[in-house]
């Protein structure tokens, strides 16, 4: 990785921070660059302060970094808040005619953004597009690539052309006034187009590819955009997306739809999942396959609605009363989010149980430029779902038949078999019972599925050497930051590796135990306050990690932060 350019767009809600950031990212992705972008926003519709950070690279990149090369400040507050984050040689692009008390000297590139927007684009509202043009002008990027993206975004009509002109005005202004004053230059790398996609979109695509036809969900940040994406495609792909009265209804709906035979999913955050917990148990008892996406945000209660945290791990492992099986998958990055979603649907149907996909705000709303997903590699495994022919051969049908694997052949209502199930403890046919012997046998049958399910869980990833003096341990969305931290630390001569888990339950105890046996000191790195993975490791392997590196301020880890914290521990 030679190239590393960080662009930040800052402004208030309603100024188009997200749009400008997205368009910029898209223009870079079109040029064949790798990138990682994240969003920081407040829980409000207008005002406040938001920013969108893009890190562009010629090699794989999975995290944001602290330093800013170009700060596109759409308001004065953004200059004041983020100027301190500039790296050496970094610059601020701002509107010198709108800002008060800021000179246009040194690293401050004052451009008449709004005036140029009015003069060239036809509307002062396009000031953000002018700024976009300035940023690309500074690095000498290909303007035509940007124009194409602008036309796709705003249309080819007056709006699109206005924005193209506004961008060109900014671009020329930068070329004329600041040529050579910004050191990095960026030309499109290749024609290889990458998908610019965020975590929630990857989950929605994974669900669609996996054949999910029914989704019920109640809006909740940061999960809402999964539902919005699916709903937006519902006519095109004949999907049913329902927004019911609450999360309780949502989870019971997907249970009903799945019982009838559709692949079904819900998506929420920890607070919404609190309401769904009894439904999780219902799926466990009735052996109904379903996928529940939980985009974590800081709690308890409303917490920090638009920020990130990994505070719900222990909660989802234990949610609902009684003992029943579930699987918990926690995507490491955006590509992983797609593939683990597919896997979630297959595990749910194969083992007839609820599968939880545990992400967080950071993964949900971060963008990455990834290679196109290869759909030919998506397999759909519906498990022991009987066809009418197979049912015919079977003769008598019992929905909860006791089998050696614990998995009962599944039929759907409306076919030739009668399908009966109950939230009460039930017999093989599905009718409620109270006797001790049947209860014991049914519990054993359901729990027996653990053997098969455990074998499906992928081994944790190890990055760096198999053994090292210090092992970082993480799970879920911290993967990119941790990987890069390992690279930096190793570059500085420290013997460090990474153990990362993205398939958390059933816990891959043997594999984790093996790595810990060979490790020197070990440190969990988690976006929570109490070290939930550390506790899980201890419970499942009997091994105690050396220390915890924790962050629970609602913001994601950066590689530099992990590096600094680890150094404090080992030196």
């Amino acid at each position, binding site marked *: 990785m030679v190239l590393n350019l960080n662009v930040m767009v800052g402004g208030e809600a309603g100024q188009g921070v997200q749009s400008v950031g997205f368009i910029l990212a898209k223009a870079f992705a079109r040029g064949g660059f790798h990138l990682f972008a994240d969003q920081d926003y407040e829980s409000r519709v207008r005002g406040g302060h938001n920013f969108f950070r893009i890190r562009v690279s010629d090699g794989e990149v999975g995290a944001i970094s602290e330093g800013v090369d170009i700060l596109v400040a759409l308001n004065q507050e953004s200059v004041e808040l983020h100027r301190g984050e500039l790296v050496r040689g970094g610059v601020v692009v701002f509107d010198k005619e709108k800002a008060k008390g800021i000179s246009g000297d040194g690293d401050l590139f004052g451009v008449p953004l709004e005036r140029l927007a009015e003069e060239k684009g036809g509307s002062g509202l396009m000031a953000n597009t002018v700024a976009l043009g300035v940023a690309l002008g500074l690095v000498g990027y290909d303007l035509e690539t940007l124009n194409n993206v602008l036309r796709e975004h705003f249309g080819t009509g007056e709006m699109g052309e206005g924005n193209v002109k506004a961008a060109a005005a900014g671009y020329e202004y930068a070329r004329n006034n600041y040529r050579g004053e910004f050191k990095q230059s960026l030309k499109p790398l290749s024609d290889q187009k*990458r998908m610019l996609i965020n975590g929630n979109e990857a989950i929605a695509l994974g669900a669609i590819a996996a*054949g999910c036809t*029914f989704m019920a969900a109640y809006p909740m940040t940061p999960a809402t955009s999964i539902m919005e994406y699916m709903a937006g495609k519902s006519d095109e792909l*004949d999907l049913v997306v329902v927004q019911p009265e609450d999360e309780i209804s949502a989870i019971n709906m997907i249970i*009903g*739809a799945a019982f*009838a035979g*559709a692949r079904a999913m819900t998506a929420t955050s920890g607070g919404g999942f609190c309401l769904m917990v009894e439904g999780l148990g219902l799926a466990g008892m009735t052996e109904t396959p379903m996928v529940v996406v939980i985009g974590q945000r800081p709690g308890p209660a409303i917490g920090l609605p638009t920020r990130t945290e990994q505070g719900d791990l222990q909660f989802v492992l234990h949610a609902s009363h009684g003992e029943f099986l579930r699987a918990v998958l926690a995507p490491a990055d955006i590509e992983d989010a797609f593939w683990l979603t597919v896997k979630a649907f297959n595990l749910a149907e194969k083992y007839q149980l609820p599968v939880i996909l545990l992400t967080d705000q950071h993964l949900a709303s971060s963008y990455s430029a990834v290679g196109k997903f290869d759909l030919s590699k998506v397999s759909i495994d519906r498990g022991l779902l009987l066809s009418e022919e197979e049912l015919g051969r079977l003769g008598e049908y019992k929905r909860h038949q006791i089998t050696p694997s614990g998995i009962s052949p599944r039929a759907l209502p*409306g076919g030739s078999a009668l399908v009966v199930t109950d*939230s009460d403890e039930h017999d093989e046919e599905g009718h409620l019972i109270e006797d001790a012997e049947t209860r014991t046998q049914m519990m054993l049958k359901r729990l027996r599925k653990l053997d098969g399910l455990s074998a499906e869980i992928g081994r944790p990833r190890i990055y760096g050497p198999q053994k090292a003096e210090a092992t970082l341990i993480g799970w879920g969305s911290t993967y990119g930051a941790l990987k890069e931290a390992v690279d930096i630390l190793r570059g500085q001569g420290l013997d460090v590796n990474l153990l990362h888990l993205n398939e958390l339950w059933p816990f891959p105890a043997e594999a984790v135990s093996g790595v810990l046996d060979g490790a020197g000191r070990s440190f969990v790195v988690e976006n929570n306050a109490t070290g939930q993975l550390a506790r899980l490791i201890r419970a499942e392997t009997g091994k105690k990690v050396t220390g915890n590196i924790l962050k629970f301020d609602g913001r994601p880890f950066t590689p530099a932060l992990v590096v600094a914290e680890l150094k404090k521990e080992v030196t």
Partner: protein
Amino acid sequence: MVKIADYAGGKTAWCPGCGNFGILTAVKKALVALEIEPRRVLMVSGIGQAGKLPHYTRGNLFNSLHGRTLPVATAAKTANPELVVIAVGGDGDGYAEGGNHFINTARRNHDITYIVHNNQVYGLTKGQASPTSDLGFVTKTTPHGADIPLNPIALAIAADASFVGRGFAGDVDHLSKLIMQGIQHRGFALIDVLQPCVVFNQKNTYAWYRERVYKLEGYYDPGNKLAACEKAQEWGDRIPIGVIYRKERATFEERLPALRKGPLVRRKLDPMQAEELLGEFL
């Protein structure tokens, strides 16, 4: 030819004389009269004595959680509209724990039939007040008497339920015909059934109801919403039974373009259908 024997179910665990027996018979008779085979029927029930009903008949059955009958039932119907979906629960189940689902299911007009065994008392937990208990009804948990009862008929009409009926467990023939109409109705059909609880409700007995219930007949127009609202207020000396409100409107399932190509459950699952979507991200 569908026979009553086709709907013969398991051994009941209800008290002798329970109003639930009348409802069970009425449900079976309605299904037989409509020539609906058990394999086409999905009964979804909640928790309470009423929730056991589907176990005592034959068909597909999902016995769900307390109060959660409607979300399960409506989504199963959406996924496979070919199923005849009947939701069954008690007054505690539907009007207390599941009250929000009740209002919103009515509003959305899912094409299911919802039979509420309304005995104005909690049976399974042994005699506590329910949302429909009469004012002042004293129980172990309401020593100062129950509050003003919830009026499920008025609530359903307010939520624009497209079919609102009330039956009496002591008049099986009338109830059975009402259930038939509910099943035949396109849209959400509420059938609130006055059901004596012979153990815990010594006030609203068979005799008490027989003195009061009367059938809504020819002169009454259930299509008139204002009249229906007025009729819904009638309680006390005279209690109307029959179809109180009915209005034809598009069902939830009819309004979903996704279902025009047939039930979701028969969809062939093909990962390649996402191919075009991927292109939009390039």
